[in-house]
């Protein structure tokens, strides 16, 4: 159950990893989310989400080259795994189905009010 369902923020992170490919790592993901959504996310939130995604097997990570900035620490680059892609597609399909099932009037009402 937990394995397949994506949380809202997790979905956001997962999508961002896709957008940034192959340069997705902690700080860049955080910056990208901020740029695109204007949300004020903290580094620790992003890391927490990444950790959960990796546990579910939706992303995989590997260390890059050591650089002189970042105190000589290596970056951990994230990529979406095939099950990650599947999970994204499933979410998208669910949404689409739901979108399609909404009667026109309902949307009209919402728009007018």
């Amino acid at each position, binding site marked *: 159950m937990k394995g397949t369902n994506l949380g809202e923020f997790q979905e956001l992170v997962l999508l961002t990893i896709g957008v940034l490919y192959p340069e997705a*790592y*902690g*700080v860049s993901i955080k910056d990208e989310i901020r740029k695109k959504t204007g949300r004020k996310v*903290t*580094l*620790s939130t992003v*890391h*927490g989400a990444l*950790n*959960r995604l990796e546990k579910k097997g939706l992303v995989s990570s590997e*260390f890059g080259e050591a650089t002189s*900035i*970042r*105190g000589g*620490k*290596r*970056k*951990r680059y994230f990529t979406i795994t095939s099950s990650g892609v599947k999970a994204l597609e499933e979410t998208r399909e669910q949404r689409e189905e739901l979108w399609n099932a909404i009667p026109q009037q309902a949307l009209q009402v919402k728009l007018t009010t």
Partner: protein
Amino acid sequence: MKNKNNIPPRWADRFLEWYCKPQLLEDLQGDLYEHFERHLSSKGARKARWLYALNTLRFFKPYTVKKLNFLNQLTQFIMFKNYFKTSIRSIARNKLFSAINIFGLAVSMSVCLIMITMFVEVKNYDRFHHEAEKIFRINNTHSYLESDPSLFASTSILVGKRMKEEVPGLKAITIMSRGFNGDGLIGDKRIPISGFWADEDFFNVLSFELYRGDPATALKAPYSIVLTEETANKFFGEADPMGKTITVAEHEYQVTGLVKNPPFNSHMDFQSLVSFSTFEIENEDNRGFLSWQNMWSNYVYFRLDDQTDIADIENRLNAIAADENSESKQVNIQLAAQPITKIMLGPSNTSNQLGPSIGREVIWVFAGLAFVVILSAGFNYTNLSIARSLRRAKEVGVRKVVGAQRKQVFTQFIVEACLISLASLIMAYFIFFLIRPMFLNLNPEIQSTLRLEHEPIVLVYFIAFALLVGFFAGFLPSLFLSKLKAIQVLKSASGPKAFSKINLRKALIVIQFTLSLMFIISASISHRQFKYALNFNLGFDTENVLNIDLQNNDPQLTKAMFEQIPEVTDIAKSSHILSIGSRWANQVKSDDGLDSASVYYSSIDHRYIPLMKHRLLAGSNFPEKNSVEVEESMIVNEQFIKHFKLGSPEEAIGESLKFGRERLTIVGVVENFHYATLDSEIECFAFRHKPQEARMLSLKISSNDLLSTRKKIEEAWAGFDEVHDFKGYFYKDGLERAYEQFSVTYTLVGFLAFLTICIASLGLLGMGVYTAETRLKEISIRKVLGATEGSLITLLSRGFMLLLLLATAIAVPATYYLFDELILADQANRANIGLLELSLGVIIIFGIGFLTIGSQTWKAARSNPALTLRNE
């Protein structure tokens, strides 16, 4: 980046490193650094640092934090209760094995407790001095020509004087000398008194408590004396001694101070201190007084300044020694500073000590022996536990299935071993009190240096020691048991092969018995050497001779007094008693001055040679004289004429040589005899004719009841000299004391042998019981098939007997070599190591081994097979 503010706060970084899982740390820290650098340029160092710290805190989340180690440890801790319970149950279930283990460990531990107490006590010697680690004593190393250097606790007065003048960085230096003694007179009361000469800095260096008088001046003026509490009581009783006078050897000494008795743990003990200035006045005419080589009875102690390093002082001392040594070609004296706290533990071959000292060699040897004994008991535990591990294997299996880690199983069995060793400690503590008096009475020297009373802190050492023993004894079994695999153990009813560990167990048994055998053989060899030394034909007759110390009484008067006793048939006078240790020597030169040797001598009267039944080979005895004004004759031994190439004994008569300052003519030659203890060869020896200098009387007694005669003599002495106690002993007893080292060795080693044998036999018994139990079915089947009891016993005990045989094969040659090549090698006269000594131990060990193993196997072999085979 040099600026401290341009890097993230160190404490936050540390905090992160501390809590974060290692596999996450690198990336996390990297991201934080990157962020930090960005903030640094946009928001300034202060804010950036603050944000960094805040972020490290934000990351403190369940998924980043390391698995809590202490939680794990907490489980261990909770499990202790369980370990404790199972241990107690297991101990109670196997009463025999637990008893063997506890008893064996307790006995050997008690020896170790004595060892620990002794070590602590010796370590604490002389610590009562204020800042004892800053006090040092000057030791001399004296070498004459090419001979081996010897170490002395004494030094020359000159060194003290020169140090006072030219060595900076010392708080105080004191010069002391021993040899103040005589009879103290107060009115008509006469009491013997002795003490040291010491200068006014004595109390600045050493912290003996002066409770009356001024420490700075008490030892300044000539003829001042400081008494200890005890001595003051003896002389003055209740009266105040301060300012009173005591007359010693016609000089009046004024009491200027009272000092508390030197504590038990002081390496020096004294009755009184007399100002050194007195000693200087009395030696005004002595030209050698301040000589560099006058180093036999003087002592220098000094106290370092706070800033001074002892190495600087040692350099100074070396410089002084080099300066002074340049004047003599023959004698070389080196100086060294020895910390006062190390005196008791110093090298044991230091001569001229102010009191008895325990050398570090003695401590190490004793520690080694104690270690061997505890090793043996530890082996028992290891051996029996591994043998019995089959029974515990199921328990381990279940524990592992339930989720115990290897570490936890290991801890469990270590806890069990520690419990056993703590139980042993309690028993050992009682045994300790039992054997303490025995140990102290081994030898008067031990009695005067050790008390073996312990402070509370020593109890802590005891417990720590017991835990250590428990850990090491339990280490192998625990390791072995914790390695077991749950599936393997639970699947097969009969244990896997690994259970046997037969080779290890066999090796442990062999080591145990090898050690026991070595102890027994050593004890019997030293016993034999002791007996040999006592019964050795010294070359003269010591039968029924009572030696009496004159204690400064007139030889002639004392002799006349003893002649009244009818049982005393003859009396001879001499300067000292031969063969029991002390030797006097002087340089002898031939006429042409080319040949010289140091010659041992004794000054005697004309009765000495006939009384001791020395055999005169040529010439005659000394003429009958009670006093010899001009010394002119001597009687020498064979070695003497051989060394100086004087030809046959007859030819040597009439030859004269320079003996020190005198010129002496040989009037007689005696057969070689042992004037020294048996560890040295016979060298040149001469009797000198100086009856007036006699300090000892030798009484030949003819009586059927020696003890009552001795009593009579004592009574006669008491009537004659009321001041001094009678100091007399039979020659035989004197010899026995001289060879005490052997008797101490064999009692000590004999005792340890007894212990190790007991322990090893107990272990063997345990193994016997175990074998008989596990093979009971096999035995029963064999019996049903027709095996005789005899053949079964052989079958079961053969393995053990082979082990004992192996132990013998190792121990006998090893001990023989040890004694032959090392311990007895420097003894000039020694008993041969006979077959009896070597085989005695072997017989004992085999006897005990056969009894223990035999009794168990016999029991098993006799059991009714129907009973054991009935239920299957």
